[in-house]
């Protein structure tokens, strides 16, 4: 089965699998948020950051260690 065929199941299936209930208004908000964020999340996940060596316990009050 194509992954795209199940895309619209994500919200109801995800909420149901976590046991989270949502009324009609909440579902409308969730769907709007999903439409807004999901394409950007997919773009974020597709970025190749394998060359970025993570900072170990970064101190955000200071510049990163070289």
């Amino acid at each position: 089965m194509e992954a795209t065929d199940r895309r619209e199941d994500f919200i109801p299936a995800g909420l149901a699998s976590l046991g989270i209930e949502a009324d009609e208004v909440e579902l409308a908000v969730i769907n709007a948020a999903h439409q807004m964020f999901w394409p950007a999340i997919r773009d974020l996940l597709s970025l190749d950051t394998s060359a970025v060596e993570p900072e170990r316990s970064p101190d955000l009050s200071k510049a990163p260690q070289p």
Partner: protein
Amino acid sequence: MKALDLPLREQAAAIASGEVNPAELLDAALARIEKRNPAINAVVETFPERSREMLEAAPAGPLRGVPIVVKDEWPLPWRAQRFGAAELLAPTAPGESGPYRALRDAGATIVGVGNMHELGSSSTGNASVYGPARNPWDSERCPGGSSSGPAAAVAARLVAGAVGADGLGSIRFPAAYCGLTGLKPTFGRSAMAGHHMAAVTTMIVSGPLCPDAADCRLLGSALFGEELAPGGSAGLRIGVVRDTVSEDVSPEVREACEAAVEALRAETGGEIREVSLDGVEPATLAAILAINSESLGGATPERLNHLHPEIGPINRGFLKYRMLLPAAATVQSGRIRTLMRRRLAALFGEVDAIAWPTVPAVAPPLEAPLVELPSGTLTADQANVRGGALANLTGIPAISVPVGISSDGMPIGLQLQAAWGRDELLLDAAEALERANERRWVESLAPLARAGSDPAEVPGA
């Protein structure tokens, strides 16, 4: 001029010299809140007896006797924070928060609690359990968020200084919408103890909202627990990024910000350099994911199924949607954070400050917070977060400075960002910018703040 209309530093000096009686100043602030606040809903609670007790016990500190408003994000010894909401997922209780202690030790008087956007979740301030705060420049417009009440309180001159919090731009956005100076400190430099997310957040900081940079320096010094000494900004190297964040903005905002950058260059004898900073867009999403992950504590399905009925529909839906965000995206956000911190570290070897508009358009209507940009119509939140999130993700300090008034009478803000720990430089640069435009914008008053004003005279009131 009434003492209450003086800048924070002049109020403090007048009290120290005996020229102004701090008890009378406190009474004047309470009276002004009673008179002006109904039009803007900036202050959601006062506690005159507690304020008087604070004043009576005040040490001879740099803020002795000056009235200050604190955002509903911090507990006080007599009041737990409500975070603008009917219910928080994290436990809260009255207590001595870091900002409370800082203000108390500096001698300040907390005169009231400032409204805020519900759960700190928007740049507009148009939703709160107390009802929305309103912009003193036009009460039908958004004051900005999430530190909506602190900003509106200062813009209406209920007080000359307020403490806000900034997790994705929440001090800088309302500063820009309300014509104030607002400092988002370097992560970790300002008082945070007692915040319900203090132990987990890598994004949120407390900071000052004031009419100008000198007052931010004074109030910021109290919050930092150290003097933010002036050091000058001669020869300032200003980086300008030609990207969505500076290009996809309304023509009036763009013009005012470009003029301000040029004025700052001329005043400091510095230079403007066009610089590239790749990755601002994914960094914005990374910041949104980071703060949403950090605020998931206490969000069990059971709790989410029994949210307080007075929590607004947008937050009800979004609290549940957050549970579906993939962990892989949060991990990726951490790598983007590292990448952007390294890019900024390199960039701050070339320039001292990066300048771009704080928000791409002036304050939109409360009822429909949409903004018209060259790319089309966006929600104010979508548009604003693009310029605000990077500083929180990476930890660098940032400041919003008023640099103009639009043709429809609303303030415009320029944001300056600097390297970690260079908060003082941002204050120096903001003061240089004030000199460059002869303090025209920091001394522009909202209609509600003008002497003798009556709420009925405020547009939209």
